[in-house]
């Protein structure tokens, strides 16, 4: 595997921002009542992460080490404002569901931590790949949580996707036809699902490496 592939894979599973690094969990719980919402926010995060990583890695020589945090915040805030203005034009309906969280991407710890740990030291291409990998890992986390919650909570899957991908007939719509578990789309359901997914990740790692990883921290 080349280095870029490793970087992509890292972001997806071994260093998944939500389940492994436990960073930026707020949106992971909040917007994941459906897959569509999670996917939409995920795309916004990929955009902001890639653009910020690219910007910082290009201009890293010009940014004085003493002001790097405010400089990073300004860069992120700029790209967040851009995506915040573009998204409603793409799909107003879904944007309304995730509006607050699109604005809050500014304070997502995952983005600034990738800038600080990676993009500020590495050249352009690996920075962009790393940013993309992390963004995709984040989107994967949101979609997985969203899928479980939507399937159990509303008894559908990919409902409302015609707003993201135009599927007028909605061929992927899976209706289970059983009474759904209401608690899953209530706020509490998000906490339960993420807790159990994290435990599953731990369990898989235990089966492979024979060790339980420490995940007591939070940051």
């Amino acid at each position, binding site marked *: 595997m080349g280095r870029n592939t490793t970087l992509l894979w890292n972001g997806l599973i071994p260093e998944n921002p939500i389940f492994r690094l*436990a*960073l*930026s*969990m*707020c*949106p992971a*719980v*909040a917007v994941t009542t459906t897959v569509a919402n999670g996917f939409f926010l995920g795309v916004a995060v990929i955009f902001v992460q890639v653009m910020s990583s690219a910007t910082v890695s290009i201009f890293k020589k010009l940014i004085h080490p003493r002001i790097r945090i*405010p400089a990073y*915040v*300004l860069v992120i*805030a*700029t790209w*967040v*404002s851009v995506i*915040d*203005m573009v998204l409603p034009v793409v799909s107003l309906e879904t944007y309304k569901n995730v509006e*607050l969280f699109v*604005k*809050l991407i*500014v*304070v*997502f*710890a995952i983005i*600034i931590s990738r800038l600080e740990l990676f993009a500020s030291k590495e050249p352009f291409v690996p920075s962009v790949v790393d940013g993309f990998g992390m963004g995709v890992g984040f989107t994967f986390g949101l979609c997985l949580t969203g899928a479980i919650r939507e399937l159990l909570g509303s008894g559908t899957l990919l409902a409302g996707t015609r707003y993201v991908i135009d599927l007028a007939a909605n061929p992927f719509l899976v209706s289970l036809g059983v009474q759904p578990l209401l*608690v899953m789309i*209530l*706020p*509490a*359901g*998000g*906490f*339960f699902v*993420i*807790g*159990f997914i*994290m*435990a*599953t990740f*731990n*369990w898989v790692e*235990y089966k492979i490496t024979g060790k*339980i990883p*420490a*995940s*007591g*921290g*939070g*940051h």
Partner: protein
Amino acid sequence: MRTTAVLGLLVLLCAVAVGSAFGAVTTGSASFKGDKGIELTFSVPVDDAWAKKPENLVVYEKPDPDIRISPASIAVAPNRTKVTLTFKDALNTAGEYVVEAKDVSSEGKVVGSTEFLVKKGHFQVLFGLFLGASLIANYVFTKFLGLCIFFGVSQKKDTAVGMGATFTLVMVLSAVFCWALFTYVLTPLHLDFLQIIVFIGTVAIFVQFADTVLRKVNPYLFKKLGVYLVLIVTNCIILAVPLENVLKKHGAAESLIFALGAGLGFALALFLMACVREKLEVCRVPAVFKGLPIAFVVAGLFALAFLGFSGLVIF
């Protein structure tokens, strides 16, 4: 000399007459009584016969002056300054009603017309806002903001209390400042689209400011709270509250109370969680659930409990 005295007396009489006529206009007040009644307080005792005539009291919702609502019954209190109107259907107590009292009659004399505006008191609105931000729509348990810090700092009770207090302080200060910036600088200049950058900048400045001041003024407190100050910048709530203030068009006092409620709600959540996690330390948790996974499940249970606050109305 005599003409002046007579004139003076006339002026005085006029003033009294005008005053008594306008007294009813300016000093009457009205409030909701339950969700089906409106209580009017007149500055003068009104006549029973006048008050009991429905056409003398015209009630309508403020945006719909053409659609009158007629009261089902009208009661006059023994001292005759309080009149209670009761309606068949529940009123919309979140809205505003207007009561026009035509030709108010006191002791058999007509003393002029008056208009009452009936709405929820300012204090009630603020208290509702506070309750909403702290319990009903608790940022951690119903909106899932600030989770990074929530899970990171909730291992011990005393750190939880320190973080909660510091956070509330910075929250209130920066929310009020952001509100002022938005209302007096960004809106007049039509620069609304810069709000995200401006707000995050303001928060960062306040954190830095609190850090510097605390370091110089009270080194002891700084030693205890300094660690949390830096963490505050990565807490979503601190940015979400100013954004919501703008979104919901809150005023200055409302912004302040909303921020205070959000901050205290976060502190409460942090404290509750810390209490449980201290106990969890000595529990036998399945190995794969140790640490964060079990903390998430506990938070889920809290979220279920907080759902019970939904729809809570005290006033």
